[in-house]
Structure formats: structure tokens, C-alpha cells
């Protein structure tokens, strides 16, 4: 009997070790593909479908005539247009304090952002890296159109200062490393050229 208990204990200890090892080596889950239309892949060329998980450090690629929406844990929502490449460089989020940091890089294509809790608590903690510069956002919906290593166009979509929805008016700060411009009116855009 003792032998059986001993064997069982050893088995469960081994199982726990394996599980804990596998957990510690697995990548951190930071969001899901909310909608996948067409061909969506990650950096490992794995096909992503609606409901697929997105992990820390992932690169998401959309093919021609494809688009996707990614839902992040902090309620940031990104909508990717066709022929888009986007990398999640950093995503740290505390769901209780809503504190965190979100750094993403739009390498090419079109990405629409609806900012979430990280940006709401501290707008400086959301950074969008572009091939030619960076941008920060507050209370905002905006779209980034990036032509690989050529130029990026950033358009503020809203909300406007006179919105009747009680939403915080959106604003963007765009920098090419030397100069910074702000956009506060929906429909206005800035362009950074390489």
C-alpha cells in the first residue's frame, strides 16, 4: 500500500513539475483574434482564425483581401486591413489597477486603433512605433497607414470635441524624432516620411 502511495506521489510530483515547466515556458496570452476574414497568420506562419489567441511578442500578418480585429486584455481593439504587418513589442497589464504598458509597431499596412484601459489610465503608456516615428494617443480612435520604410499617415477618427456621447475628445501626438505635432480634430491627418 505504501508503495502505491509513494508511486502515486512521485507521479503527481512529476506531473506538477511538467505542468509548471510547460506553463513557465509558454508565451503570455494578451488577447484574441476577434474577427479573422481571409488569411491571417502569425510570425510562425500559423493560420489564425476568429478566437485564436494572441501572445506577447507576436507578429500578426494579414494577406491580400484579408482583415482582422484583435481584442486585447485591456480592451484596446486593433483592426488590421489587408497586407498588414503588426508586432506587439510590449504588453503588460494589471487588470485590477488597469496600469500597464503597450508598445506596438505597425511595420506596414493599415491598422485602426480604439484605445483601451492602459491608455485611459496613462496615455503615455500606449506607444505606436512606425517605421519613421512614434505616436501617442488619448481617448481616441485613429488609423495608421504605413508604407514600409516610406511614409506613415495617421488620421484621427474621433471622438470630436463636440460629441454628444460623453466621450473624451481624442488627441494624437505624432513625432518623427525631431518634431512633434498634435491632432485634435477628427479627419485631420499627419504624415511622416522617411
Amino acid at each position, binding site marked *: 500500500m505504501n508503495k502505491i502511495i509513494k508511486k502515486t506521489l512521485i507521479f503527481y510530483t512529476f506531473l506538477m513539475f511538467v505542468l509548471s515547466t510547460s506553463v513557465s515556458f509558454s508565451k503570455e496570452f494578451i488577447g*484574441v483574434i*476577434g*474577427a479573422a476574414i481571409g488569411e491571417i497568420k502569425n510570425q510562425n506562419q500559423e493560420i489564425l482564425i476568429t478566437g485564436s489567441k494572441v501572445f506577447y511578442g507576436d507578429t500578426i500578418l494579414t494577406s491580400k483581401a484579408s482583415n482582422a480585429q484583435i*481584442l486585447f486584455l485591456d480592451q484596446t481593439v486593433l483592426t488590421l486591413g489587408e497586407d498588414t504587418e503588426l508586432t506587439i513589442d510590449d504588453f503588460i497589464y494589471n487588470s485590477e489597477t488597469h496600469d500597464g504598458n503597450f508598445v506596438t509597431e505597425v511595420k506596414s499596412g493599415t491598422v485602426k486603433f480604439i484605445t483601451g484601459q492602459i491608455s485611459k489610465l496613462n496615455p503615455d503608456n500606449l506607444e505606436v512605433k512606425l517605421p519613421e516615428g512614434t505616436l501617442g494617443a488619448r481617448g481616441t480612435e485613429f488609423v495608421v497607414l504605413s508604407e514600409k520604410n516610406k511614409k506613415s499617415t495617421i488620421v484621427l477618427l*474621433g471622438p470630436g470635441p463636440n460629441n454628444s456621447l460623453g466621450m473624451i475628445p481624442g488627441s494624437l501626438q505624432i513625432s518623427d524624432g525631431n518634431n512633434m505635432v498634435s491632432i485634435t480634430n*477628427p479627419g485631420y491627418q499627419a504624415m511622416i516620411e522617411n
Partner: protein
Amino acid sequence: MRLITYLLFVIFLFSQKSFASKITYEEILDNPSDLELNLNYAKQQESEGNLKLTIATLERLSMLYPKNVDIKLYLLSILVNMDSKIKVDLMLQTLLNDPNTTDETKNAIAELLVDKNQIQEKEKKQTWFAYLDLKYSQTEENNISATPNSKRWWTKNAINDFPSPDDITIVGYDKTYKRGGAFTYGKNLNDTSSIFFNLGLDINTNNKKFKGESDITSGSVSYFKAIRNHYLSPYFYYNDANYRGQEDYISQGVGFNNTFIINEKINLNYSINYSESKYRNGVGFMKASDNDAETLASNLRFNYNISNKTQLSAKIIKSNIESAKAYDGYDSEGVSISATTIFPIGTLSFRSTYLENEYDERENLVNSSLDRHDESYATVLSLNGQVNQIIPMLRSINMDNSIFYNLTFKDSDVRSTILNHDISRKFYTMGLTKRINLNNILKNE
């Protein structure tokens, strides 16, 4: 009509066996494509005021269920209130290019937009606005007691040394602190006219100088009317100045201002103003009313917009001051040039003004043999804008962009035939204004 859209949507929701218990974001992450769950979630987020998630959810469902026009209509009904023409235009473009959009849906879209426009027009017609400005500023001045450049002055036809600074009555460098508040109420009377009422109180104190501290209450009414390219504005104002160690007075005036837009680049502005100052006799100031004066001032300004960020202006100034003491009355003529440009950190303005003042009579108690003729040069350099523009880290505190800064340098140099008035002064001002939008407060209530 917007109601009908909502009604359609509610029927749609019920038809989908809707309205379960509160749905969490985690449930959506687990089931991002579940139509019923996600529609209920969108509705729930809308009722909680979290419209960003409503929009994101509806946009996702539009991608997943492109044939479902009700989702798009629901999304459009939210976007029209977002004050973002580009969002509405994009959504309309999507809807109208969608082969699933039926004529019936197109009619519903049209009704929604007409309804929204009517609401906006109604709001526009009835728009009133009110705000309270709380101001604090500090001015440093290098010659607050107006010591002449020569440090000498005429008294009883003889040149004497001007009293040396004692930091009480005669002060050189000093600081003036201004705390004030101003309440403004405006109302659009119709599409082309509006009226403004303003009430203010400023309290000015000096660091050293005893005389000259004041509290000033003020009020004004102005009316604006647009007639074609003319923007006309008659106005009336009233000030009551209560000074420490100096005569108190009231001043009141009426004026008229018109800006004539010639084209996108050029506009002309002209104004005429009549005002009177009445001094109060009182203990220690038995002859204060001898300072009473009337002023008739006019100017013509030419503005040229080099770009949508830079404007150059030139102004001709002419005025006449009639004083109870004839030697204080004078005719004034001059010109002013200015340049204003908008930078990312704020609006930078430069203004330089030259005036010649020809006095009506000699001041016999000062110098009975010399006519007084002054030439004044004033240069003003100012930078103003929102504090977030110069200190971006304040964005998290000043979220509604309601705190404004002002930095001003002014150099005043008066050359006069009478030494007493041959004076140079420099002013450095920095100020902050917090604007409290009373519309939001009153609307919320």
C-alpha cells in the same frame, strides 16, 4: 426617426433571445463571434456609456456578419453622435457600397441623418454657452513708479532730482500680482447673431509699492451680427476701479467694431470707441473729479494671412482725449504693426506700436514755457496657448485642455519734451487661466 432604428434593433435583439445577465469582457474574449452575446454586450456597454467598446463590438460583428444591415445601422446611429464626420462618411460609404443595403435601409439611413441634422440645427439655434475664467498672473516691472530716464524732473519751472527709490512710495523694480475671475454668458440669437454678457473682478496687489493696488469690477455686453462678409459688433462696458492710496473712478464706454473679410487672405477691421472716466471725490481726494476725461478713439487695421498659421497686421490709430485738466488732454496718432504665428507650443505674437501725443495745454505748475509732445514706442512679445502644449506631461491632469498660459514681455519707451514723462519701462508677465465650462456642468445637472 432615430427611434425607429433603435426600435428595429431592439426587436432584432429580442428576436435573438437576448437580454441575459451582465456580460463580461472575458466572455467576449472567449466568444468574440457569438452574434447574440456580442450584440447584448454592445447594448450593455452603450447603456454604461462605454461607447468605444460598443463601436468596436459592432465593427467586429459587421466584419463577421457583413449581410446584417441592422448592425451597421446601429453602428451608424452611434457614430452620428461622435462628432466625427470622417467616421460617419466612412460608414456611409461602406453602407451605400454594400450590395446588401436595400432601398428600405437607404431610407432608414437618410431618416437617421436628417434626424441628426435637425437635432444639430436645433441645438445650434438654441446654443448658449457659459464659462468661468479663473486667472492668476504676475507682472514684474523694472520702473513701477515711472522714474524719468534722466532721474530729474520739472517742478514749478525748475529742474530737480527725482526722488530716490524708498521702496514704499517710489519704487523701481516691483512685482504686481493679479487674481481674477470672469464669468461669460453667450447666446446665439439666430444663425447670424449672438450676444455676450461678461462680469469680472480683478484684484491687483503690489509687492512693494503702496499706491496703485486695486480691485476692479467690470461688466460688458456685446452683440455680434454677420451680414455677408461683415462681422459687426457694437458693445458697452463699465468698470469700477477702487484704488489704494489713489483716486477711485468709474469708466464706461460704447464702441463699434467691424471686420470686413475681403477674401481668404485679407480682411479689414475698424473700430470706434467713446468712453468717459469719472473720478470720485473723497477723503484725501477732494479734487479727484478734476481728472475726469472723455476719450474718442478709432483705428483701422489691415490683416493679411500669409498662411493659415501666420498673420501680419498693420494698424492706424487716432484718438482724442479731453480732460477736465486741459493739460492732460491730447490728440494721439500712430501706427502699429504685428505678426502672429501658431507654433506647436502656442501662439507667438509680436507687436510694435508708435504713437505721437500732442497735448492741449502746457502744465504751468511743471513747466510753463514748454509744450508737451510725447512719442511712445511700445513693443510686445507674447506666447500663449494651452499648458499641455508646453508641458505635455500635464495632459493627464489637464485632460480637457482648459488651462491656458500666457507669457508676455513689453518694452515701453516714451520720449517727451517734458523730462517728467521721458520714461522707459519693461514688463514681464506670466499668467495662467483655468476655464470652467459651465455648459457641461449645467447640462449634466
